[in-house]
């Protein structure tokens, strides 16, 4: 009986947004009298950071500091229509709607400032720190706060904007499947190292090395959060989770977190991540939305690593110790596959020496 090392690889792409379109999102932006901006949405923050990403997008588009923007969501009386947070559509669809609403509000803001400075609005720019100034002449400036106050109380002008983003609905062909699915794709590739105990059938993921292409990391910390959490979920899906352990038989289904198996915080796998950014042309500042895709490559990479370690093909999820042991039994024992894959050599070792 021994513990075997294995290494597996997988790579994927992932479609962003509702597949065939028809999923609009709207946003409204308006300023307070002292030049702070409120963004009203109906988007849902599931913990993925919807409020924060849209806040940064609004601040960037308006040209004001992020501290001066607040996102209010979701109240159907005040937030305009949005399809919801699913299908990796939040950043792409809502983000684009926020850009459009913020662009219109910015246009009003620049015109109000131009009136105050008695210049052409086209000659003005923002410094991102709360000031509007003449291009090339930073001293000829007015604050966003003074601009908003003048607009509200002197000019009788609102600094507000509306935005909607829609990929029109399309259809799939019945005979060829021709369709215009989503407009952009995120990408990922990863190498996973596992150890497999050929006595118990237990699999432990020891390290992940990965690369994720996300268009643009709108907020690098939120991207990091998604990628770490997604890898955890991928490990959990691959090795532990199901509501029907003997599917399609419905017996022995877990009923709570005592019986629904998932790795705990202590089992988060050491993970070395590279983030690549290739902006998509119709995505907000190029960002694609990393949330859904990042769990997917983990599942096959683990299955491939187990095969590399002990020669058992695990084609049915989740890969429980029972399935590994039955595979080992059918093969008459472990058959380490090796290969020139850069893995630590000397793949197998006696138990207790890992």
């Amino acid at each position, binding site marked *: 009986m021994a513990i075997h090392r294995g290494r597996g690889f997988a790579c994927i792409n992932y479609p962003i947004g509702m597949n065939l379109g028809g999923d609009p999102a709207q946003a409204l932006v308006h300023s307070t009298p002292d030049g702070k901006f409120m963004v009203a949405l109906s988007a849902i923050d599931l913990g993925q950071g919807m409020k924060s990403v849209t806040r940064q997008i609004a601040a960037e588009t308006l040209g004001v500091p992020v501290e001066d923007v607040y996102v209010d969501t979701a109240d159907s009386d005040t937030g305009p229509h949005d399809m919801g947070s*699913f299908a990796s559509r939040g950043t792409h669809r809502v983000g684009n709607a926020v850009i459009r609403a913020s662009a219109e509000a910015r246009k009003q803001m620049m015109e109000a400032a131009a009136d105050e400075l008695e210049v052409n609005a086209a000659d003005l720019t923002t410094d991102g720190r709360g000031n509007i100034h003449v291009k090339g002449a930073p001293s000829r400036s007015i604050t966003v706060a003074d601009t908003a106050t003048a607009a509200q109380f002197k000019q009788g002008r609102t600094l507000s904007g509306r935005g909607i983003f829609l990929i029109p609905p399309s259809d799939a062909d019945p005979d060829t499947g021709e369709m215009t699915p989503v407009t952009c794709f995120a990408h990922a590739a990863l190498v996973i190292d596992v150890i497999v105990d050929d006595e118990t059938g237990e699999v432990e993921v020891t390290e992940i090395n990965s690369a994720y292409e996300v268009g643009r990391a709108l907020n690098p910390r939120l991207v990091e959060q998604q990628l770490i959490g997604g890898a955890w979920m991928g490990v959990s899906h691959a090795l532990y989770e199901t509501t029907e352990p003997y599917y*399609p038989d*419905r017996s022995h289904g877990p009923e709570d977190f005592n019986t629904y198996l998932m790795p705990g915080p202590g089992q988060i796998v050491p993970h070395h991540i590279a983030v690549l950014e290739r902006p998509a042309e119709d995505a907000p500042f190029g960002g694609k939305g990393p949330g859904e895709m990042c769990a997917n490559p983990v599942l096959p990479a683990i299955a491939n690593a187990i095969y590399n370690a002990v020669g058992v093909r695990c084609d049915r999820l989740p890969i429980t110790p029972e399935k590994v042991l039955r595979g080992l039994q059918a093969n008459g024992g472990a058959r380490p596959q090796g290969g020139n894959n850069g893995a630590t050599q000397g793949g197998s070792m006696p138990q207790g020496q890992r």
Partner: protein
Amino acid sequence: MTTVEFRKDLFADERDDTLHEIGKPTIRQDILGHVTGRTPYFDDHLFDGLLHMRAVRSPHHHARIRNIDTSRAAVMPGVRRVVTARDVPVNLNTLLSLINFGRDDEPLCAHDKVRFLGETVAWIIADTERQARDAVAQVRVDYDPLPHVLDVEEALKPGAPLVNEVYPNNTFDYHGKYDHQKLRFGDVNAAFARADHIVEAEYQMSPIEQAPIETCGAIAAPEQNGRYVCHTNTQALFFSLGTTAKLLDMASSRLHFIGGTSGGGFGGKVDSIVEPTAVLGAVLTGRPVRFTWDRYEEMQVGAPRGGERWRIKDGVMADGSIIAREFTGFFDSGAYMRLSPYAIIKAAGHLPGPYSIPNIAANVFCVVTNRTPATAMRGFGITAADFAIECHMDRVSEVTGVDPIALRLKNAYRDGDMKAHRRVAKNTALIECCQVAAGKAGWPLSADLAAMTSLGGGQGDRALIPETATDEEGRIGERRAGRAPDTAPSKRPTGRVAAGQAGQAVVAVPVQNEDMQIEVDRIGHAIAASHGAPVASPAPTYARQAIAPQRTGADIVPPRPAAPPQAAPVAASRAAPPAYAPPSQQAAPSAYAPPPAAPTPPASPQAAPPAEKPYQPDRPFSRGVRKPGTSPFLSGTRRR
């Protein structure tokens, strides 16, 4: 330990990295509230006189309901109202009816029969949750059990029990024509015949629970002027609002939905079941009503990520080139459709994964079984397909002896390549991801592989749509009549689609006025970069000023010279319809085959909902016989 590096060196010329706020690690607007326990969730909205609603649930996979006796439950202490199917104004819906997809197939409360273990047959509304649970246990339902089917391929057999009368073949009907979604590109059978190796395998994913910390729930209460407020943790506010308006036959203006903060979702909070249920309770009692699943319901009654079965057959040359790939996929939708049929189209569009393969065929089925309905979960429609594809790539690697990463790089899609759904690939980055991941792990790559780039695709045949073999197997009803024994793509094609045929890509609607257009120099990325595919509409969203809505020919398809005469008119007719007329999802005529004799008309909802698009609900809890304890998440000292 986790390390993160941002490879700003890659694709640097396509990006503007001098933005002020984008790309900054700004702290989340809501995080302090989350970590200090101050963030209000739906369940923090205390109302005077809040009532609690629990569901009576089916103990059978499939049974006819003969009688429901609620007389004992109705007189239990604290019981305010017993609610049954008769109290639901429009007791039939399908989630995607709000985007005109699918037929209404699911009651909020079962009345004639139950189709899965845990289906709702009645509700109790009582002063406390304990009282509601006790009264639920006193509802007597007289069932006549029926044969049930739990396996997708069993359900396709001619003699299989009929699960849902709305779909009499136990499958979703695609385009009013076939009992599955087809994908056809090239001729797989011809390619299999000349391949050096054939690699076949089957993959299976079991259902998976979304497992949010906060279970699905809603609190509804009467507001002024005949309106109802609903505090909810839905993932899709207007989907839930629209679904509620439809099921309760109520103007959407009478509904005030408040949400936006959810204790985890992962796809499990789009089904919009708790919201109409809670609002129904508030309507019937005139009191605030809370309807929330306990953990058992979340795990076993709430919709999971559904089971999927995939079979893949590859034709491979000795050097590792994959020349043909065929899929047969089965999605286990459970007793009702919800979102699964749509996810299958998404899956079909995703095939064959991120690879450039000249011959592709797929049949993907959405199958009805007597199981808890499936719904969305992170990666919906893609996760299991990717598991199958990437496990299969390693099988191909073993058969050909080509290193696993080398094999993927050899077959990777690149900018300019034609995809199986007949649109050109662009903005690809698979090769770079493979190279970077290999580099980090110390997995050796040859110099040739390390020098590859996503930018240089689209040469030769890779950019072209081949002549395609088609068939008409699997028309609706044939399988149940025993006339369509095979589920895999046909071995005997009966039609050909000329090379080069494709319609035009659908792109975003332009801004409605120019002021909404962000300036081109502030969008943060290079438009129409020199690389890449035929980018006829480099930045349809930003770069174009307010132009009349139109389809933009983003993906021009170079036709092959051999195209027969009818190619042009067909292609033209496909491009003809106005860009914004929402095409019917149900009865799309095919450009490639004779029109179906009688497309199934889209089911028309009894009450056409207002403009908002609601979404589908999930299911409430079971009758509580297996897990009678109260979840600590559901009630607490805060709740009266």
